[in-house]
């Protein structure tokens, strides 16, 4: 169960969408009615809110907009958001590759349990994601007294934010790679081994290139969530301005202080990130689909020779 895994399965959908005139199909009026209704739904729920973010952001003009983004607290929030993503994403990439390798290339008992555990963060409420770290690392948590004695703080500090971010983005890369690598099977790795390659050479020169697009796809989604996470981070951050505020938390603070234009200005940055994510994701899907079609055509040509 995953945002990303679901999206992954969609790539081949487009090629099959042959919309030729067929004897079997709906009449033109029904087609247009259904299309219109679907587009209206998408417009009301997706387009209008997105447009509104940018409109509100600029409602008080450029100066207010720029001021909201350049004030020190906003800058600090941007930096903290980038730091959290810069730690969480690579860690989850390493984990994702290791988990996908182990799960897809070997048979072992308990595989399903591991897969379910990997999925779990998708099903857990963000508030609980934050709560569990408070219980472990908070001042009254399992490790709280020990951390206090050593003058370390995790909750209401940057490490807690990083941990919560790791948790909520935990499955993204693994979820993208597991089905991909399961589908690819083991014969390429076996071929490399029969040709004398070492384990590392096999991974780096055979496996990694064959999963790079799937990996990139997972990284893009993982990154979007890492930078945008709100609930889990909110629980562990303590909302200390200029210290433990990420961009989404900064939006909340500004909003609750009725600084709407500033809140939407900061929100527009995050909305822009979302749009960039969608564009990158679509570009990847498009490229993948085009590659497949192109090579299929080339192979057919060879077949005819």
């Amino acid at each position: 169960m995953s945002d990303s895994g679901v999206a992954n399965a969609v790539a081949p959908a487009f090629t099959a969408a042959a919309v030729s005139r067929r004897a079997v199909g709906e009449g033109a009026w029904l087609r247009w009615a259904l299309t219109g209704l679907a587009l209206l739904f998408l417009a009301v729920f997706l387009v209008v809110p997105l447009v509104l973010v940018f409109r509100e952001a600029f409602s008080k003009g450029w100066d207010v907009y720029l001021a909201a983004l350049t004030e020190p607290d906003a800058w600090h929030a941007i930096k903290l958001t980038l730091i959290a993503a810069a730690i969480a994403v690579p860690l989850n990439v390493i984990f994702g590759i290791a988990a996908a390798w182990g799960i897809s290339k070997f048979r072992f008992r308990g595989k399903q349990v591991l897969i379910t555990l990997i999925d779990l963060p998708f099903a857990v409420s963000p508030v609980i994601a934050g709560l569990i770290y408070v219980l472990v690392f908070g001042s009254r948590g399992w490790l709280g007294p020990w951390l206090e004695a050593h003058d370390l703080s995790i909750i209401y500090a940057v490490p807690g934010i990083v941990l919560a971010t790791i948790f909520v983005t935990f499955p993204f890369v693994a979820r993208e790679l597991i089905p991909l690598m399961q589908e690819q099977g083991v014969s390429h790795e076996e071929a490399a081994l029969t040709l004398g390659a070492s384990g590392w050479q096999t991974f780096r020169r055979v496996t990694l290139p064959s999963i790079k697009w799937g990996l990139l796809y997972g990284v893009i989604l993982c990154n979007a969530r890492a930078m945008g996470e709100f609930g889990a981070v909110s629980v562990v951050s303590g909302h200390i301005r200029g210290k433990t505020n990420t961009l989404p938390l900064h939006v909340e603070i500004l909003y609750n202080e009725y600084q709407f234009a500033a809140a939407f200005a900061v929100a527009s940055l995050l909305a822009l990130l979302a749009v960039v994510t969608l564009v990158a994701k679509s570009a990847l899907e498009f490229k993948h689909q085009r590659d497949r079609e192109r090579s299929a055509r080339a192979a057919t040509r060879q077949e005819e020779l």
Partner: protein
Amino acid sequence: MSIQVRDLNKSFGQFKALDNVSLQFNSGELVALLGPSGCGKTTLLRIIAGLEFADSGAVLFSGRDATATHVRERSVGFVFQHYALFRHMSVYDNVAFGLTVRPRRNRPDKQEIAERVHKLLELVQLDWLADRYPDQLSGGQRQRIALARALAVEPRVLLLDEPFGALDARVRKDLRSWLRRLHDELHVTSIFVTHDQEEAMEVADRIVVINRGRIEQVGTPREIYNAPATPFVYGFIGDANRLSGRAAGGWAELAGLRVPAPDFAQSEPRAVTGYIRPHDIELSGGGEGDGLAARVESVAQVGASLRVSVRSPEQAQSLQVELPHSGGQWPFEVGDAVRARPRAARVFADAPV
């Protein structure tokens, strides 16, 4: 290099893939492992390659125990059923792969790698495709590139898993004779797996027939076809009329046909099953003479032979007969009365119930 496998056993859960298999492959020969799907032939090939490990038993290369040797050190060339070409590498890089992953001290230099790759691509007659990617090749081309890649590491033995399985019929025929010629040129000990008897017959020096993890027969294509050792081989290789009957005193009575059965010289009768090839039955016209009286049920011309189906009024089963034929006139038409006489037959005792 010669290969020996001794007492190999391999199970997957409850399923016994190999049941005490021992075999000898001589240096330089081309052997087919032939059997229905799921018979264990691919498992055997993968154990020889070192891609799978047997539960017990040994694999010997040139008399030396290689059972525990890692696939990396076995220097086997393995051609995978679906070729397993690296999609992100050009044809050139695919073929060069085995050379470029060698440790630096015995890796050939760039120049030498290029020479060897081009020589191999010439050998498989695809030098002009060096810059292409696997997805841009036809099935037959991929197959030959996979072979070139396997040969690049100068393997001591070449193993091919269903090498023609994924190709269409016409390409398959071409590649078969090409593989045979290539083997005659290189003389690398080669083993290939197939479920297609025609393929095994045409290409291999020797055939190993496998069924349910056991070896049914080992022999040259001629021996396998002309003297099948077991009922399974009779049924699997070529067509045969399968007839039940009884045998006693050196003769068997099979659905009205009397055939010699020297294995059953004892006097007391026992239940047997006999196998007669369609082209080992003679038909003569008219109601007179010896042999089984029957009527022609159907006639069809397939290439240079006639396939005739005849049935005796007393028998439930019809007999399939194949006659050489040329010219426009058929010697028999549907409804003709004929006499059927077997020229050769093989009789096996039924397993006691």
